[in-house]
C-alpha cells in the first residue's frame, strides 16, 4: 500500500525522459490527483485503525502519518492544477523559459515525492534523509527564475537549512546512542517510543534540543527563521504555496515525533518549556515585521512564521486539547496560506506586482479574486467565521484551562498586531480605491476553480469540523501516545 509514494517519483522520471511541455502539465496534474486518491485511501483505512507497514518497518503509516499525508497530497493536487494556468502566464510574459518550465515540473513532482516520504518514514534516519532531500529539491525550485534575488534567496535557504539540519542529524545520532545505552540501538520510531521510559533523560534532553534547532530551522520557527521570508517570497507563487502551506508542517512533523519520545523520557515539563519558548518567539517576532512589510508575499511569509509559532505553542502546551488544536491548525493553515498565495499569483499576473502600495482596489477589476483574497486575509488574521479562528480559539481555551494567562496575553497582543497589519495591507489592496494603472484582467478557469473550492473550504471548516476529520485527529493524538 505504501508503494503509492512512488507515483510522483515515476511522474518525475517520465517527465525527465519526455521532451515536450504540454504532456508535462497533464502528467503532473494526473500524478498529483492519483497521489491524493492514494493518500485518501490510506486516511480512510486509518479511520478504521489500520496501520500500514512497508520494507520491514522502515516505512509505516499510522493515523498521524495518514493525516499529514492527506494534507500534503491534497494541497499538492490543488497546487498542480493551479500551476498549469499560472506558469503558462509566466511563460507568456517571458519570466521563464520553456526549458526551465519543463524542469520546473520535474522538480515539482520530485518535491512532492520527498515530502510524501516524510510522514511515512518510521526510521528516524530516513526521516532526516527525506527532510534534507526536500531542502535540496525545493532550493532549485526557489531559484528557478535565475534572477539575482531568487538566486540569493535560494542560496541563503539551502545554506541555512543545511547547517540547521546538520544539528538534527547530530540529534538523531544522540537518540541512537541513548537507545544503544538502554539496550538495543535502534532508530525505529515505534521501537523508540516503546522503550522511551527507559532512555537516559539527560541524553534525550540533549537530543531534543538539537532536533528542535535543526528541524525548527526548517519549520521556520523563530529565532532561526531568517531564510524563510526570502525563500517564500522569491519563489514562483505555486512553490511559495507548497513551501508555506505544507513543507513547514513536514519539518514540524519531525519535531512532533521526537517530542513524543522526549515527553515519555524526560517528562512533559521540559518539552513544554522548549516548545513554548520557540512558539512565543515565532509569534512575537513576525508580528512586528508584518507591520512594516510593503510586499504582500513577504507579509504572507512572515505570517507563516507566526502560524508555525501558534502550532508549536499549542503543541507545547500539550494535553489532548493542545495537540488537537495544533493538528487542526496545521490543516487550517495549510488551506488558508496557499489560498492567499494563489490569490497573490492571480494579482501578480494582472498587475505584475504584489507591492501593496502599487496594487489597489482589485474589487473593481476582478471581484472574485478580491472577495476570496479578502476572506483569505481575514482567515489568516484569525477572524471568525473562518477555520483558523476555530483552532486558535481551541488553543486559547486550552491556555485558559491551564491558567497560562501570561502566554495568552502575549498571544492576543501579537494577534492584534497581525490583524492590524493584514487589514492595512490587504484592505487597501482588495477594497481600496482602484489604482490608476492596472493590467488586463486575465482568467485561468482551472485556477479560479481551485480558489473557489479552497475558499469554500476555509469557510465550511470554520463553521463545523466534519466527523471523520474529528476522528482522524483524535486517532492521530493516540498515535503520538498521549
Amino acid at each position, binding site marked *: 500500500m505504501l508503494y503509492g509514494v512512488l507515483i510522483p517519483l515515476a511522474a518525475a522520471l517520465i517527465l525527465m525522459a519526455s521532451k515536450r511541455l504540454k504532456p508535462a502539465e497533464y502528467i503532473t496534474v494526473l500524478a498529483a490527483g492519483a497521489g491524493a486518491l492514494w493518500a485518501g485511501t490510506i486516511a480512510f483505512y486509518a479511520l478504521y485503525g489500520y496501520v500500514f507497514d512497508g520494507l520491514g518497518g522502515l516505512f509505516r503509516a499510522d493515523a498521524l502519518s495518514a493525516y499529514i499525508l492527506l494534507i500534503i497530497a491534497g494541497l499538492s493536487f490543488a497546487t498542480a492544477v493551479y500551476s498549469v494556468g499560472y506558469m503558462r502566464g509566466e511563460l507568456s510574459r517571458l519570466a521563464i523559459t520553456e526549458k526551465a518550465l519543463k524542469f520546473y515540473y520535474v522538480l515539482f513532482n520530485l518535491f512532492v515525492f520527498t515530502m510524501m516520504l516524510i510522514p511515512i518514514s518510521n526510521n528516524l*534516519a*530516513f526521516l532526516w534523509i527525506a527532510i*534534507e532531500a526536500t531542502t*535540496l529539491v525545493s532550493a532549485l525550485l526557489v531559484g528557478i527564475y535565475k534572477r539575482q534575488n531568487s*538566486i540569493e534567496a535560494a*542560496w541563503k535557504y539551502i545554506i541555512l537549512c543545511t547547517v540547521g539540519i*546538520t544539528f538534527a542529524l547530530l540529534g538523531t545520532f544522540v537518540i541512537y*546512542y541513548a537507545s*544503544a545505552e538502554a539496550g538495543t540501538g535502534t532508530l525505529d520510531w515505534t521501537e523508540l517510543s516503546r522503550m522511551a521510559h527507559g532512555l537516559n533523560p539527560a541524553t534525550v534532553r*540533549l537530543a531534543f534540543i538539537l532536533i528542535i534547532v535543526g528541524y525548527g530551522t526548517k519549520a521556520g520557527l523563530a529565532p532561526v527563521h531568517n531564510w524563510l521570508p526570502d525563500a517564500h517570497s522569491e519563489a514562483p507563487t505555486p512553490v511559495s504555496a507548497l513551501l508555506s502551506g505544507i513543507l513547514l508542517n513536514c519539518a514540524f512533523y519531525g519535531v512532533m515525533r521526537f517530542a513524543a519520545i522526549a515527553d515519555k523520557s524526560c517528562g512533559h515539563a521540559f518539552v513544554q518549556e522548549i516548545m513554548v519558548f520557540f512558539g512565543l518567539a515565532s509569534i512575537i517576532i513576525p508580528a512586528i515585521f508584518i507591520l512594516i512589510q510593503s510586499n504582500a508575499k513577504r507579509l504572507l511569509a512572515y505570517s507563516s512564521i507566526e502560524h508555525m509559532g501558534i502550532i508549536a505553542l499549542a503543541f507545547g502546551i500539550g494535553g489532548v486539547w493542545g495537540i488537537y488544536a495544533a493538528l487542526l491548525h496545521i490543516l487550517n493553515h495549510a488551506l488558508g496560506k496557499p489560498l492567499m498565495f494563489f490569490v497573490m499569483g492571480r494579482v501578480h499576473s494582472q498587475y505584475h506586482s504584489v507591492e501593496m502600495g502599487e496594487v489597489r482596489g482589485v474589487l473593481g477589476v476582478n471581484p472574485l479574486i478580491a472577495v476570496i483574497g479578502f476572506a483569505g486575509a481575514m482567515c489568516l488574521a484569525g477572524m471568525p467565521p473562518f477555520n483558523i479562528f476555530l483552532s486558535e480559539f481551541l488553543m486559547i481555551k486550552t491556555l485558559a484551562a491551564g491558567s497560562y494567562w501570561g502566554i495568552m496575553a502575549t498571544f492576543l497582543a501579537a494577534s492584534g498586531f497581525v490583524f492590524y497589519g493584514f487589514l492595512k495591507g490587504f484592505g487597501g489592496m482588495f477594497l481600496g480605491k482602484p489604482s490608476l494603472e492596472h493590467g488586463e484582467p486575465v482568467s485561468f478557469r482551472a485556477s479560479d476553480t481551485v480558489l473557489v473550492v479552497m475558499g469554500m473550504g476555509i469557510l465550511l471548516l470554520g463553521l463545523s469540523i466534519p466527523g471523520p476529520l474529528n476522528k482522524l485527529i483524535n486517532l492521530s493524538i493516540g498515535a503520538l501516545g498521549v
Partner: protein
Amino acid sequence: MARNWLQAYSVLDFIAVGMLLSVIAVSSQKRLESCVRTYVLNSWLLAAFVTVSAFYMGMPHLYIAAALTVLSKCFLIPYFLRKVLRQLRVTHDVEPYISAPLSLLAAFALVVVVFSFVSQGVFVTGVTRNALKIAISIILISLFVMMTRKKAITQVIGLLIMENGLFLAGFSLTYGMPIIAELGVVFDMLMGVIILGLFLTQIKKAFVSVDLDKLTTLKG
C-alpha cells in the same frame, strides 16, 4: 595484541586531534586550493578514525562506512569542488572578513570553551570521549569559518568540514548508524554539494562575482 597497542598509544585520540588541527589550519589558510586540500586531508583522517575504531570495536559494518567515506569525501566531493573552482575561475584568495591571526585565535578560543564546558557526565563512551569534544569544536570552528569568509565557495567548504565533524561525533557516539541509513545520508550530501555547485555557477552568472557581500538585497 594490536588492540592493546591501539589503546596504549591512544591512536583514536591522535587521529581526532589531527582532524582538529586540520580544521584550525583551514581557519587561517589564504588560498582556496589549500582549503580544498586540507578538507581532503581531514576526510582521510575521518576515514582512518572509522577504520581504526571498526578494528578496535570489532564491528565489521564500520569498514563499509569507512569505504563510503573515502569514496565520497576523499574522491567524489573534492573532484567536484576542484571542477567548480576551475569553472568559476575565481581568484585564489579566500578574502576573509577578519585577519588570519585573529581567526586562529578565535578557533583556539572555541576549542578552549568546548573543552571546559562539555561535561563528561552525559557521555561515557570510554576510548572515544575526547573525540566527541573534538567533534563539537570542529563543528563550531567550521561555523565560524562559514560566517567570516567572503566567497560563497568557502561556505561550501565550511559546510563540508562541519559535516566531517558531525560524522566524527556520530561515530564516537554510536559506532555508526545502520548501514542503509548511512548510505542515504551520504547520498543526500553528495546531491547537496552538486546543487550548491550549480548555484555557485548561477551566482557567478547573475552577479558576475562569487562574493557574498553582493548577496545583500533581501532584508527585513
